[in-house]
């Protein structure tokens, strides 16, 4: 593997810039390699109390009573709270950027009211002088439960006689409630063409069923929060979150406060991947602070993270595809049932939007079901819903290629979506890079490299994510030394301070090092949606570009004033202001910046954007594996990730997203699962047993960045955070299939699953 006759990290650039596309050091880097960066759990202040949360040991039960009197009598305890301390929200709904949600669901998830719906469901909380005291006090709280039978999978929960989690849950059809009461909270259908005619015209039809397990985002930093309910009734929260404004708005809604009474300071954040969007402990810490009169910090344990926060849905999927003998796709049908966990919202909608997005198919029907089960309420996880769907679709596409004897990438190229292709959910695609990604895969030396040896196989798959736009704000101030300070509201999880700063620098002709970016609290910047949806470099980047253009225009006016000319007489190019009429008057950005204070008002640029021109991103993998036929262990020999970045603003961090997303996809494919017993108890709620990939499990992850410019961004950027997690499970299933000739239709494909498949093929019954 060390012999490399190729470039392990390639950027197929189509356009060059001065700053964009280069690899400056990240602005927050020194603090993060020296241990100085302050993450949420590092926050400390005078009088700080430590909170802890009591969680349900049962997956499904009615709460008969909660007696907190003994805990309150503990000498070191300062406050105890239960859900009765919240204002009853009734039927109120809130929009938290992830669609409409009943406030009661969020509130009941934060602290259970009448029922516990999963093991790990928060029931009560205490604040005490130390964490040890708080944990002691939790044991003094007496909760009486009436146990109810748990239901743990979507197919079980959809049965007519299944136990109901919510007695009044009415199924929604595209946003409208129906009369049907069940565990199905939402159904949608997309239709295109005539599905029956499409299958009738097909020469080959492949129909398969798939299951995927519940998996967790697995960020290394547990959730944490510190809240101070101040004497003036204002609430200040310091927390690790992807969305400080989401925390502000949800906490305010749950506590029945105006948003202006809540201020959220985002600390450095130790990973999120979608899992640090929901609110869990912030309102609880706030209530504990109100009752105790102290600031209160809560830091989750790892078991609490796994059992009490939102993983991504397990799912049951059926895919049927029909093709002509030349490979032309004629019809495709999907039936998707995703497990929402305790409360509605299983990300099946984006799953449905992505399931056939890569292909131009004339006749399509997609049915999606959002199903509540007695597991933690699910959250987004990197291209939420898409990985489950692509595992199924891409596996069927690979099977079709094999049956028709067509190269799997040629089959994809023949049917690839492109600009103008109508998606199954209606709209036509704008400029996308599906074809270019597949072509890059075909052209890569990995695809044609020999793969010798027994039990070895190569697999391919592609994936797609729409990406999000959503609001972002940015302010830029010019300093007299020729630098700028840039203020934004997007928590930096993977180097976005720098990718955003670089875009402002490009506009102003400055090196990236002359920008000083800061992520600030919700009182100090305009509304900015979550760091999620692959949107920060695109959307907050656009805000930075607009703010920088505002600065540039003000600087041009200032130069005009200094030179005594009209402003249209001044040009700005590569960091230099000069007169258009050819005289020698010129000033660098620094020279003009130095004169700002003596020639007029301070120069401050500002922008708020909600950009429409979001560019979706396609990705692909080539994976080589070796399967041990004795143990079922799958070893990855070589792995190449491809993705359309539109324009890679900072290629190192684009590669990082691709490598990290690929490895999360590899973990999802080969190891990770919520191993639940019949009572709904997670049996592997530690990082020893919830087995995420280690450095020893992996080879280098090679990358190819494809650049198909997004017309919706001045530099062509597309979000790159998510699409990379989508193809690995299908690519690895394909590789395992090619290695030992077994069809893998269930995730994870751990040694047990692989051995069962091998035994099944050999006709053994073990």
């Amino acid at each position, binding site marked *: 593997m060390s012999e490399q006759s190729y470039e392990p990290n390639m950027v197929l650039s189509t356009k060059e810039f001065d700053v964009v596309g280069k690899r400056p050091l990240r602005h927050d880097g020194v603090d993060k390699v020296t241990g100085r960066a302050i993450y949420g759990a590092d926050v400390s202040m005078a009088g700080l109390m430590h909170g802890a949360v009591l969680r349900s040991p049962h997956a499904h039960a009615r709460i008969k009573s909660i007696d907190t009197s003994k805990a309150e009598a503990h000498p070191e305890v300062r406050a105890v709270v239960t859900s009765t301390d919240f204002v009853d929200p009734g039927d109120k709904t809130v*929009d938290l*950027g*992830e*669609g*409409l949600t009943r406030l009661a669901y969020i509130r009941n998830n934060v602290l259970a009211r009448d029922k516990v719906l999963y093991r790990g469901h928060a029931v009560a909380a205490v604040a005490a002088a130390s964490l040890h005291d708080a944990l002691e006090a939790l044991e003094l709280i007496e909760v009486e439960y009436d146990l109810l039978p748990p239901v743990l999978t979507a197919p079980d929960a959809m049965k007519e006689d299944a136990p109901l989690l919510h007695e009044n849950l009415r199924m929604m*059809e*595209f*946003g*409208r409630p129906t009369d049907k009461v069940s565990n199905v909270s939402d*159904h*949608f*259908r*997309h*239709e295109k063409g005539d599905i029956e005619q499409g299958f009738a015209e097909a020469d080959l039809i492949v129909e398969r069923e798939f299951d995927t397990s519940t998996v967790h*985002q697995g960020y290394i930093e547990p959730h944490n929060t510190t809240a101070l309910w101040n004497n003036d009734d204002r609430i200040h929260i310091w927390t690790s979150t992807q969305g400080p404004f989401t925390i502000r708005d949800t906490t305010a809604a749950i506590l029945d406060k105006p948003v202006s009474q809540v201020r959220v300071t985002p600390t450095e954040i130790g990973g*999120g*991947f*979608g*899992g640090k*969007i929901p609110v869990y402990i912030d309102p609880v810490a706030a209530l504990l602070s109100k009752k105790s009169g102290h600031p209160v910090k809560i830091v989750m344990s790892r078991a609490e993270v796994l059992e009490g926060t939102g993983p991504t849905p397990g799912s049951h999927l059926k895919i049927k595809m029909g093709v002509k003998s030349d490979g032309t796709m004629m019809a495709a049908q999907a039936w998707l049932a995703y497990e929402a966990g305790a409360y509605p919202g299983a990300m099946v*909608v*984006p799953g449905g*939007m992505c399931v056939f997005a890569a292909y131009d198919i004339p006749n399509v029907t997609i049915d999606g079901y959002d199903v509540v089960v007695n597991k933690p309420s699910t*959250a*987004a*996880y*990197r*291209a*939420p819903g898409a990985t489950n769907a692509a595992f199924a679709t891409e596996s069927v596409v690979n099977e079709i290629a094999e049956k028709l004897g067509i190269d799997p990438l040629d089959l994809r190229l023949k049917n690839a979506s492109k600009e103008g292709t109508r998606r199954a*959910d*209606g*709209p*036509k*695609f*704008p400029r996308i890079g599906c074809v270019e990604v597949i072509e890059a895969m075909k052209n890569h030396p990995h695809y044609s490299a020999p793969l010798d040896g027994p039990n070895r196989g190569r697999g391919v798959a592609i994936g797609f*994510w*729409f*990406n*999000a*736009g*959503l*609001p972002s704000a940015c302010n830029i101030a010019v300093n007299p030394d020729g630098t700028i300070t840039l203020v934004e509201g997007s928590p930096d999880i993977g180097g976005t301070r720098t990718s955003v700063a670089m875009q402002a620098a490009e506009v102003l002709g400055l090196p990236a090092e002359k920008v000083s970016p800061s992520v600030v609290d919700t009182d100090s910047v305009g509304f900015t*949606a*979550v760091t*999620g*949806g*692959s*949107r920060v470099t695109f959307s907050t980047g656009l805000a930075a570009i607009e703010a920088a253009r505002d600065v540039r225009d003000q600087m041009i006016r200032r130069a005009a004033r200094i030179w005594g000319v009209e402003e249209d007489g001044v040009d700005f190019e590569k960091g230099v202001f000069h007169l258009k009429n050819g005289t020698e008057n010129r000033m660098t950005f620094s020279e003009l910046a130095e004169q700002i204070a003596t020639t007029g008002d301070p120069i401050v640029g500002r922008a708020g954007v*909600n*950009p*429409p*021109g*979001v560019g979706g991103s396609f990705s692909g993998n080539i994976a080589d594996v070796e399967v041990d036929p004795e143990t079922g262990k799958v070893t990855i020999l070589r792995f190449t990730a491809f993705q359309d970045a539109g324009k890679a603003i900072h290629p190192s961090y684009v590669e990082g997203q691709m490598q990290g997303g690929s490895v999360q996809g590899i973990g999802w494919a080969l190891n990770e699962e919520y191993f639940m017993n019949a009572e709904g108890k997670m049996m592997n709620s530690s990082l020893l047993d919830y087995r995420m990939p280690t450095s020893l499990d992996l080879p280098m992850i090679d990358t190819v960045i494809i650049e198909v410019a997004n017309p*919706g961004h001045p530099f062509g950027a597309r979000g790159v*955070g*998510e699409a990379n997690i989508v193809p690995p499970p299908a690519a690895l299933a394909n590789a395992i299939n090619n290695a030992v000739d077994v069809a893998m239709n269930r995730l994870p494909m751990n040694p047990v699953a692989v051995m069962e498949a091998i035994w099944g093929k050999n006709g053994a019954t073990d």
Partner: protein
Amino acid sequence: MPIIFIPAAMKELTAGAAEIRVGGSTVREAVAELEAAHPGIRDWLFEGNRLKPSIAVAVDGVVSPIGLLQHVDENSEIHFVAAISGG
């Protein structure tokens, strides 16, 4: 005239029609025309005077951040799609 694509679930309101041409120069006006011809559409999509937060509007393939206020022209395609963001 702009054309509104009817989501599968809502075809019961349009007697099965999947695409309907309407007048109007904004999405709001287009929906008002559709409502006049096929009552119930508005109730389905709206909460008060606004689109439900779970529903987004795409014009010519691009999800509009301004939704009902989005300008449409003669050849615009209007779709109602699920509002999503991501992780």
